[in-house]
């Protein structure tokens, strides 16, 4: 169990937080002791900006691997036939690139209980993970989590918006 104790500067920490909760991995800005008159500026990157660059095959719009979202029907968590190839392609990539890790974020539309939707989003993320592992990804390469209804891609209150929000996103290290 990781523990985090933040006695002060809470707002600052939280506002700037986008990385891991492990205090050991939180580092301050580097201090340059040679003085400021040589014009050098130390650049500090927050979060995962400095993570490894994704290979082109994951970002080339013509490659199926650039697609990361699986859409679901209302109150459903089964992967529809049209997304089977997409999930299979990512399973193959993970199988061939063991150094990559993936975070699957499950999402739901806004209707109903926030906590129930969190569990529903988890079910969607779990369904994608199960399929990935079945097709060759390693269990430890993939973490499935849920954002429930909290991070809608489309904030609208209509069926088109909701359909966009019933979704699982497959993110690689460096993208979350």
């Amino acid at each position, binding site marked *: 169990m990781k*523990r985090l104790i933040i006695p002060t500067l809470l707002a600052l920490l939280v506002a700037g937080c986008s990385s891991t909760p492990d205090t050991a991995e939180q580092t301050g800005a580097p201090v340059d002791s040679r003085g400021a008159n040589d014009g050098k500026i130390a650049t500090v990157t927050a979060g995962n900006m400095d993570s490894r660059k994704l290979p082109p095959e994951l970002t080339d719009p013509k490659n199926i691997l650039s697609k990361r979202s699986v859409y679901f029907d209302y109150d459903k968590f089964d992967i529809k036939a049209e997304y089977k190839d997409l999930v299979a392609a990512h399973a193959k990539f993970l199988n061939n690139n063991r150094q990559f890790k993936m975070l699957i974020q499950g999402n739901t539309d806004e209707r109903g209980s926030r906590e129930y939707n969190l569990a529903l989003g988890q079910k969607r993320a779990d369904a994608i993970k199960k399929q990935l592992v079945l097709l060759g990804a390693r269990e430890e390469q993939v*973490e499935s989590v849920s954002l429930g209804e909290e991070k809608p891609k489309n904030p609208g209150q209509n069926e088109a918006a909701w359909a966009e929000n019933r979704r699982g996103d497959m993110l690689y290290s460096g993208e979350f």
Partner: protein
Amino acid sequence: MFRPSLSLRGLSLIACSVLAFSMLSTTPANAELTIEITGAGANRIPVAIADFGGEPGSSRALTSVVRGDLEHSGLFRMIDTTGVAITETTSPAYADWKNRGADALAAGSIGPSGDGRQEARFRLYDVTRQAPLGGAAFVTSSAMLRAAGHRIADVIYEKLTGEPGVFSTRIAYVVKSGPALYELHIADSDGQNAQAALKSREPIISPTWSPDGTRLAYVSFENKKPVIYVHSLASGQRIVVANFKGSNSAPAWSPDGRKLAVTLSKDGGSQIFTINADGSGVQRLTTNSGINTEPFFAPDGQTIYFTSDRGGSPQIYRTSLNGGDVQRVTFEGSYNVSPRISADGKTMAFISRRENGFRLAVMDLASRQVQILTDSFKDESPSFAPNSRMILIATEIGGRGVLSAVSVDGRIKQRLSIPAGDVREPAWGPYLR
């Protein structure tokens, strides 16, 4: 302690429907809740609250808190006291107050307590029976004047309704401003003195008060996934209670404040576990492979109510901590979620989907009778007042999140909103100790 008095004529009729919030005074702050009564008790008690005696600024502030609390409870009607200058030492002119239509009268004053602070004193009278109902004195600093007013209103409320008042309690809620600013606020029950306990760029959901009112457990997404924290309000110290692989959510305190029931997906599916408030001692409670979430401890500390889709649709179930049978609790409708049990153990509040709206419902646990209390389309996250008589919910009006307090009989409704923000995820705190 005062013994509740139900001696006022006609009061027993409404003694069972109770109250909560009060009114906004004058503090200018951009993120304070404003309260609006949208439904009141059928028979409001006519009460005269005479202007408190003493230094004009303090006494005016005190008087307005007491009146505001009582009036906004929906249970009292204020009788005009213009031109009257009396205090707790004045013999009440019962006949005059009867002529003004008052059933009860309170008079008091505020003055130096001798130790540099101030003392607020008052007495309450039954005008109809021409008899004193008792009184109280509260020593307070100037900064805590409002708190003294809430305490006085609590005493008056209890004397006249037979139920403890909750004016002195606090509430927590989340305000979303713009696309990416979330603040966990703590405010007095009347929406005043709002302070941010946490600010984040990522969502915060499911805040819930420890039974002693010193800590909040909640779910924060600041690490791109749901993680459960316990946050000490006075120090700002936070402990990560559950950050296992997968999602960690839906914290609920045990009545003794030592444990939390939580939902974890670490073993697959969403399962309910109990965990010590310091993150140790994880024990799995549910084994069904589907969704099991939104645990809530009954006041006995042994029974856990929760939501599960094991029967094909989300319904409320209950089980025992020592591994007893799982019993289904809700049967009407295809979507019943978010169970919360009142502190007296008699009522379950939950959200039920009816005619495509998500509405606040209550179940009398003895008779299993269900009553739908609102006609909303998006009620969420019910939270009982510690006197078991009001339920705070999040709902949506005109596309914006607001809070609403609804009495368990559905008669009294108050709306709390913040002009520029989306308010959601309310949690009503315990009595102050």
